[in-house]
């Protein structure tokens, strides 16, 4: 026991010596930005992980501590399985106790032990790190924070022991509490901005996916969500807010989430740039990378130390692939969309590089470099959102063009069809026209044959036999001319107007009638139109009535003729009434007199009906023209 005490005392002396040789930080000059502790640390690597706090305090081990050099913002030892011991000497030269905050601002260090002397004497140990529950932290913050109290006129030595799956990066600062709180508020606000923006973009794109059912929005949302989670894992917010009690997960979260993020980005890129169709061979490579990233995500969870270095190479290779594909599509394929994509991805890459360079102290730590990854990621997300919007515009324009082309095609087909219809209509009309012409020819031939033809033939025969004088021949010829005129008149369309037809008849025959001394009384009334009154039917009506007038002139001995029209619901009636001597209608019809039977035949031919009423006081010819014609 005594020996042990002596040994301990010797150790303490040695420690004191070593401490005395070390660079001591006087806490009396606080800096509003905190003081970087890098140059004040004495460092000891413990590859065997065997050293205890007692060991490192022993003079033998203590002498192996090496003073860190240079005013860098952080110590950096890369991926290592070793534990690192850091020794920090602090002096309070003032007459009052001073409170300070020791911050290690790299939130993914697996394990950190703080050893520091109590004001009341004795040592205190705090074991925290991302691999321990959040509740182990003495002060709740995304980085590792140890509040210290330095008594008046005192010197203290603080030891830190660090172990990490992630790169051994130690950006440590000493803060005056107020300054630290101010810094922390700003820092949290800045982080809040990033996550707020990410949340809005994710939500917006999820809604776009719900609305538009295009997988690209979902892939984007997944990518953005994983990016945000990865960043939360890297900046400690995941540990603080999302998975505070986890230990194994929070230690590997950044690797697993990072891999998944790149997987999502690869899938999103495939969809956005349509690589399966645009560059099918490269697309196969992309699929291989997707597989590798997924495999790495699993490996990173299972063997975090083993895959840390190859994982970095894989990330680099993936980044190169994404950039190359983007550039190829942008430049060779002239995809504007790919330009957006490349720009976005470059932003992310820039952010990563800046953050990395800051970490390895090539770049100074400032607001820009501290949040480089977030800024890059934010810029990337925004640019990708633009890309997605641009893609939507492309698709919409494509759709509009498709619709226009379809419309044009439709119009063309319509035109062709119209032309076809017009042509067939034209053919039909020609056929119809030929039919009409042929019917007209037949009608006129029939009329000439029955009327003028037979009249002229008869007259000729009679003249040849010398049994006709000039006046009689003139009579026959006049009749023929009348026939001809009525035939010509019948060719004018009367447009269903029976009165016009009767008027024409009067105009032609009236003078003939009146020249024989017969008074004509015109007692027509307006009658409805007869739809079926075409030239053929008109000529039949004219002939029937002409025959009626001829009979009156020849046989009736009348002094007055009245022409009247009337209408009943079914038909229009034309009556020609004379005040002549009358005749035996039935007898005449029985005898088969040519005049009456001709009239009857003509009436029948047009679906009309003609009859006679005769007394000694006169004769009435009644022509009944139904609106709907009888079957002919």
């Amino acid at each position, binding site marked *: 026991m005594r020996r042990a005490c002596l040994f301990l005392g010797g150790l303490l002396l040695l420690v004191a010596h070593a401490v005395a040789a070390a660079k001591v930080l006087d806490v009396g000059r606080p800096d509003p930005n905190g003081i970087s502790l890098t140059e004040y640390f004495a460092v000891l690597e413990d590859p065997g992980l065997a050293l205890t706090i007692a060991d490192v305090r022993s003079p033998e081990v203590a002498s192996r501590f090496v003073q860190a050099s240079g005013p860098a913002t952080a110590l950096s030892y890369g991926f290592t399985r070793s534990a690192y011991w850091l020794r920090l000497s602090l002096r309070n030269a003032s007459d009052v106790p001073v409170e300070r905050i020791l911050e290690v601002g790299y939130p993914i260090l697996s394990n950190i032990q703080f050893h520091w002397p109590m004001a009341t004497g004795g040592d205190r140990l705090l074991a925290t790190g991302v691999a321990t529950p959040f509740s182990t932290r003495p002060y709740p913050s995304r980085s590792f924070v140890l509040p210290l109290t330095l008594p008046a006129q005192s010197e203290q030595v603080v030891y830190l022991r660090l172990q990490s799956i992630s790169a051994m990066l130690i950006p440590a600062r000493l803060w005056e509490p107020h300054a630290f709180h101010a810094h922390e508020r700003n820092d949290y606000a800045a982080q809040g901005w990033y996550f707020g923006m990410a949340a809005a973009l994710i939500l917006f794109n999820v809604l776009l996916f719900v609305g538009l059912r295009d997988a690209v929005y979902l892939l984007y949302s997944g990518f953005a969500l994983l990016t945000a989670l990865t960043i939360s894992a890297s900046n400690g917010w995941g540990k603080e807010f999302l998975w505070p009690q986890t230990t194994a997960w929070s230690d590997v979260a950044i690797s697993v989430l990072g891999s998944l993020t790149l997987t999502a980005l690869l899938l999103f890129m495939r969809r956005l740039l349509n690589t399966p169709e645009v560059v099918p061979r490269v697309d196969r490579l992309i699929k291989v990378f997707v597989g590798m990233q997924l495999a790495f995500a699993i490996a990173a969870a299972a063997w975090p130390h083993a895959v840390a270095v190859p994982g970095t190479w894989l990330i680099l290779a993936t980044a190169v692939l994404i950039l190359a594909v983007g550039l190829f599509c942008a430049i060779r394929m002239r995809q504007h969309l790919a330009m957006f994509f490349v720009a976005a991805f470059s932003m992310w890459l820039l952010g990563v590089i800046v953050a990395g360079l800051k970490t390895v102290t090539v770049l100074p730590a400032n607001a820009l470099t501290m949040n480089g990854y977030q800024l890059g990621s934010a810029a990337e997300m925004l640019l990708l959102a633009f890309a997605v919007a641009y893609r939507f515009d492309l698709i919409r324009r494509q759709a509009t063009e498709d619709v226009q082309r379809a419309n044009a095609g439709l119009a063309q087909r319509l035109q062709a069809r119209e032309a076809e219809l017009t042509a067939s209509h034209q053919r039909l009309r020609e056929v119809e026209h030929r039919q009409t012409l042929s019917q007209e020819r037949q009608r006129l031939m029939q009329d000439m044959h029955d009327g003028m033809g037979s009249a002229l033939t008869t007259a000729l025969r009679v003249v040849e036999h010398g049994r006709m004088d000039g006046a009689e021949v003139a009579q026959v010829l006049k009749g023929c001319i009348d026939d001809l*005129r009525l035939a010509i*008149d019948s060719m004018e369309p009367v447009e269903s107007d029976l*009165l016009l037809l*009767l*008027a*024409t*008849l*009067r105009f032609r025959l009236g003078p003939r009638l009146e020249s024989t001394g017969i008074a004509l009384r015109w007692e*027509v009334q307006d009658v409805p139109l007869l739809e079926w009154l075409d030239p053929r039917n008109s000529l039949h009506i004219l002939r029937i009535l002409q025959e009626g007038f001829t009979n009156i002139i020849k046989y009736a001995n009348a002094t007055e003729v009245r022409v009247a029209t009337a209408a009943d619901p079914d038909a229009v009636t034309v009556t020609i009434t004379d005040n002549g001597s009358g005749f035996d209608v039935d007898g005449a019809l029985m005898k088969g007199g040519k005049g009456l039977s001709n009239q009857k035949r003509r009436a029948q031919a047009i679906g009309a009906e003609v009859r006679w009423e005769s007394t000694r006081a006169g004769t009435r010819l009644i022509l009944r023209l139904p609106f709907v014609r009888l079957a002919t």
Partner: protein
Amino acid sequence: MPSNPSPSEHSPIRVALVEDDVNFQNAVISAIGTAPDMELIAAASTRLQGLQMLDGKPADVLLVDLGLPDGSGIDVVRTAHARWPACNIMVSTAFGDEAHVMQSLEAGATGYLLKDSAPERLVLEIRSLHGGGSPISPLIARQILMRFRPPDQAAAGPVERAGVKSQCAPLSAREREVLEFITKGFASNEIASLMSVSHHTVLTYVRRIYTKLEVNSRTEAIYEARSQGLLAQ
């Protein structure tokens, strides 16, 4: 409108004739010969002669055959209408069919004569024409009514047609009424009593309608020529 409504009491009606049919020419000459109030002042048998004849002293009534051996009588009608504005022009036709008559009326004729008319009828027609009367058939009346349909009723007509229509003199309600009676077969004296006007008034209506038809057809021709660039605006 002739300046002298009762010419028989004064100087005789001077008649000129353009006719290639010798028989009809003789029929006209002999018919005029029997009429104390008429004299034949010139006769031509070709279009060319007819046009040359128009350089001479104007006649009161010009009788023109449409089918002349060296061209259409329509040219003679049109030229006569311009050269002899006071002359009443009538065309002689075998059938008095719508197509020929309308063409003549549009060229400036105000009457027509059927070639088979008896000599007394022939003289009567010339006298009536000189007195301001004009024959009109129901088919012609209907044709004119259709011609003068207001643009809104002529739905099938092209737009420029409507534009011409608006420049043309429309028919008055009374003129329209006369035409409608004619299409129903009423004679001019019957129409006079139906409309409670004198027979002479009905005749002047018809004459006015023919004048409007001719004027409008000329307007349309000018319009047509302008729209086709054949005539300066």
